[in-house]
C-alpha cells in the first residue's frame, strides 16, 4: 500500500442504505465504474467529490474517508 492511500466506507454505507452503484453514480454525476474503483481503493477522489459523497450519505466526510484503515465492525470497544 502506498503512503497516499485513502480508505473509505462507501461499500458499507451503500449496502446499509440499499443503494446500487449506478444509483449513487447517477446522483453524483460520475461514471458508475468510478464508484467501483473508489470502493476498491483504486481511485482517490478529489476533495469536491469526497465532500459530495459525504453530503449524499448525510454524514461528515471523516465517516466516509480516512487516511488509516477503518477498524473492522465489532473490533471497536471490544475490550469493554
Amino acid at each position, binding site marked *: 500500500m502506498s503512503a497516499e492511500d485513502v480508505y473509505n466506507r462507501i461499500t458499507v454505507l451503500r449496502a446499509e442504505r440499499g443503494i446500487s452503484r*449506478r444509483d449513487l453514480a447517477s446522483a453524483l454525476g460520475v461514471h458508475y*465504474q*468510478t464508484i467501483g474503483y473508489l470502493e476498491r481503493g483504486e481511485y482517490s477522489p478529489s476533495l469536491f467529490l469526497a465532500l459530495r459523497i459525504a453530503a449524499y450519505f448525510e454524514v461528515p466526510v471523516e465517516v466516509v474517508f480516512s487516511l488509516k484503515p477503518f477498524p473492522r465492525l465489532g473490533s471497536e470497544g471490544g475490550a469493554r
Partner: protein
Amino acid sequence: MKGWWARQREAQERRQLARLDDPRTLRWRDTRAKRQRLVVAGAGALALLWAGLVVIWFLAPSDTARNVYISMLFVAFAIGVFVVGVLQQATGGITTLSPGRLDERQLDERNRAYTTAHLATTAGLVVLVALSLQAGRTSGGLTITIPLALIYPGAFTLAVTHLFLPLLIVGWRLPDPPPDDEDD
C-alpha cells in the same frame, strides 16, 4: 444559442455514447489481458505504417514500393479499425468525448494518457531530428533527396500516431472494471 459545429459535435457524441455499450464486442475487451492484446495489435498496426515509410525511403519511386506500401497500409487499416473501435468501447470514450461528458477519474486517466503520449512522440521527434542530422552529415552536402512519395504517407502516419497513441495507452492501463452490483 449553439452553433452548427457544437450541434454536430453533440449529435456525434450522442451516437458514440449509444455505441459504447455494444455487447457484441464484449468478448474482445472484458479482461485486462484481452485489452492489452488489442493494444499490442494496434501498436503493431502503427509499426506497420512506420515500416511502410522505410519501404518508401529505400525503394521509391518504384512499383514495388507502391505495392508493398499499399499492402501494408491495407493490413494496418484493417487491424486499426477493429482495434480502435473495440478500445473506444472498452475505455468508455475517454480519449474522444468532450471533457463535460467525463467525470474526474476519466479526466485524470485522459490527462495521464495524453502526457505519456506526448512524452513518447517527443522521443520520436528527437529520434527523427537525429536521423535527419545523420542523413545530412552522411550526404556530404547541404542537400538530401527525399522521395515525394514519402510526404503524404509520412504526414498520415504522424497524424495517426498522434491521434491514437493516447487510446492505446488508456487501453493498456485500464484495470478490470468492478463487477456490477448483481455480481457482487
